[in-house]
């Protein structure tokens, strides 16, 4: 009897999680932000974050209504906004507004067969960082050395990407990064830990749990996703050898859309209704 009750409860919980899974990634990225903010005060200003999130959500609401003629779950826009708020560093407010706006707009402009090609925040952040201005820099420093906080983020992140059936993407990327970091250290003569070091920073936590796992901009097959993420790691490797600080963003920005385009060309019907993936778009 008790076992039946436990099974029933487990089933109910499982169904609840399945039904509401779209809210888990936003909750997780909020948790990352809270851990960073409460332990180290990572945000220079709450205003910047609010501007980024508000811009993303408003842009999503307006563009979905007028461009697609529909309404959309705003979890994706929220993640885009929060990602921009964390990944962009500026002493002025306008980059948060512009980056968030560019990110969301890219979903509605850069499309093929009814699907967007770029991960939104990856597009916006990459564009702003590539301009190399006096107003914008990227998040390139660590959030301190709190291993407990880091462990919580990694464990939860892995559980969530596993649930979203994207664990193979994260694991493949991390494995590729480590192998290629070793190759880089052989080439550059720098310490292996120096090459591995970026992986321990917050920029990569957002990258591997939110950007490269983004279902709407991933290709359709598991094998394809593994190949694509290896290609991302290889392009990043080449960019790093050329001293590109924001190599992972640029690599995904270059490889991701091409892969998605080929995938859509090969597999997708001519036009599909716009959809939001399980892990939502960032």
């Amino acid at each position, binding site marked *: 009897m008790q076992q039946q009750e436990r099974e029933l409860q487990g089933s109910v919980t499982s169904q609840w999680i399945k039904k509401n899974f779209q809210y888990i990634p936003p909750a997780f990225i909020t948790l990352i932000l809270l851990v960073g903010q409460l332990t*180290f*005060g990572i945000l*220079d200003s709450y205003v910047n974050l609010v501007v980024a999130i508000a811009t993303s959500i408003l842009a999503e609401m307006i*563009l979905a209504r*007028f*461009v*697609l*003629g529909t309404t959309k779950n705003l979890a994706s826009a929220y993640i885009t906004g929060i990602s921009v708020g964390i990944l962009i*560093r*500026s*002493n*002025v407010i306008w980059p948060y507004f*512009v980056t968030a*706006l*560019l990110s969301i*707009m*890219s979903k*509605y*402009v850069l499309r093929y067969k009814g699907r967007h090609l770029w991960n939104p925040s990856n597009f916006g952040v990459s*564009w*702003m*960082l590539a*301009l*190399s*201005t*006096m*107003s*914008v*820099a*990227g998040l*390139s*420093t*660590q*959030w*301190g*050395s709190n291993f407990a906080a*880091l462990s919580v983020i990694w464990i939860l992140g892995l559980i969530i990407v596993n649930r979203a059936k994207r664990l193979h993407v994260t694991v493949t990327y991390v494995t590729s990064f480590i192998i290629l970091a070793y190759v880089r250290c052989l080439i*550059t*003569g*720098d*310490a292996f*830990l*120096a*090459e*591995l*070091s*970026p992986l*321990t*920073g917050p*920029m990569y936590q957002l990258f591997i749990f939110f950007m490269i796992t983004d279902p709407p901009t991933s290709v359709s097959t598991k094998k394809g996703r593994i190949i694509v993420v290896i290609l991302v790691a290889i392009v990043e490797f080449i960019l*790093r050898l050329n*001293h*590109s*600080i924001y190599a992972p963003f640029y690599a995904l920005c270059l490889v991701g859309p091409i892969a998605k385009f080929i995938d859509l060309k090969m597999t997708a019907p001519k036009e599909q209704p716009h959809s939001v993936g399980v892990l939502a778009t960032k």
Partner: protein
Amino acid sequence: MPKKTAQVITAVIFVALLAVTFIASRNNRGTTAGSAAYTVEKEAALKKYGFYLEPVNEETGIHFRHICPDVDPKVSNIKMQIASLGASAAVCDFDNDGWNDIYFTNSQTGSMNALYRNLGNGKFEDVAAKVGVADVNIKSTGVSMGAVWGDYDNDGFKDLLLYKWGKAELFKNNGGKEFERVTEESGLPGWANINSAIWFDVNNDGLLDIFLGGYFKEIFHLDSLNTTKIMPESFKYANNGGRNFLLKNIGNGRFKDVTEQYGLTTTKWTLAAAAADFNGDNFPELYVANDYSVDEFYVNKNGEAFEETGSQAGIGRIPKSGMNASFGDINNDGNPGIYTTNITEKGILIQGNNYWQPKNGDMQAPSFVNLAQLSGIENAGWSYGAQFGDLNNDGFMDLYVANGFISARENTSYWYDYSKVTGGNSNIIGDAKNWPDMEGKSQSGYEQDKIWLNNSDAIFEDVSGRVCPPATYDGRSVAMADLWNRGVLDIIVANQNNIPVIYKNTAANNNHWVAFDLQGTASNADAVGAKVQVEWDDKKQVQIVTGGMGFSSQNQHRLHFGLGESNKIDQVTIYWPSGRIDKIQSPAIDKLHIVKESQQ
């Protein structure tokens, strides 16, 4: 709205946003410290800005050259990172002949420090060896990082505190003729890696006390290490730097370590400090600028303890790379703010410098607002020392900021390598052996020093390179002084691993000035902590006598006020640390006034 129309409008806005951001980014590429193409014409500068700064090293006979400190071969991969400190300049009229002299520190073992005595005829003579303050960089006591002058025994002659990666040294000034090393009996601490020091009277007992700011941990001898784990544990949240020291002057040339008693126990990576009374109780508050962390603001509790209120005060919330602390009343409201420098490297690290303007309100708990962006003095480069001073005597304090970290091979950059380790975990960043070899690369090198002209009420114009020839050394320490007693502020910049630059200021305008040299009686003899408020032509400017401020630097002791074209001062009020207040009605202009604290 039809979907098609919405799609077209969205696409147009999207493309426009891309175009605008692209064009804007190209347009502001020239505003960074390192890339501006400057044209300098003296006559044009004089006509437009009313002053011109001319390098006069040769004419003055100042041939000093700084040499960076040695570091252990175990950390040779980042030698230039570690050995990037030590060039400093401190101004003082050490022999009381009425002419400002300059002391430069050197940092290689065996190198000589220099004391350039102002001969009054435009020439300077290095008398350091003759008076006993040259040969101070020796293996057993370490190498110089900076120096500050202060009359600790109130005998009317300023003594020399030399701080080191090693043992800090105290030299007593015997009548301006010679210096006597009194370190051993003074009670100064043993080995520590000190990169900032100031004199201030923490309890207003009339005796100058000492603050020493530690950078690397005191257990390390950087030229002979037994570990490579010497680096900060974090780029933004490091607490594994050297300890600070508060040394209370207990008279008879002795100092007592009261650091713990006064609550200055943090171990951040301190690079600068400055002290002034911000809450009107006459006791000086202490501002501590920290690298790899937040800055700290210590409120003085009746001279008996300090309370750190940086977060509540607004200055300790965002961790940056604090490298300077200097005071300036940029909007003539009688409330000097604090300028702190950090790092700005376009597209990579945009920290921005801060100008902390005191807010009106709770006097017991001072708080500040950052006006650097509004004033246009935020982004300079990899900044170190900065000083305010009215360079064209128009009545508004201008700003000079020394820039540049490591100028090695041209057109190379260590920033990518740097970003790898600074983004990593403490076990990685904290160990020098993990840092990629610099291989002679530059990092924020060849940056132009910034000169900002205050056009009125704290609105600054960047005139870098337009009022002097380009200066792209690795600037560290900035000091301002009237070196030729002409009523204008000249500038001395000490550059790392290079020559200093002595800028002679040529003013070509009808502006007036006044200067005050204060002598305490009930207060400490140097009047450190005194405030002078000059009121003229509906303006009110306050300056503070300090025992060192900026980065490893000390301005002239006298306070210099530009008056614009006004030929009359309404009133001057002097607030002495003792609590006494002296007022001078309509003092003569274009004159240095030597003012002794009144016997009330």
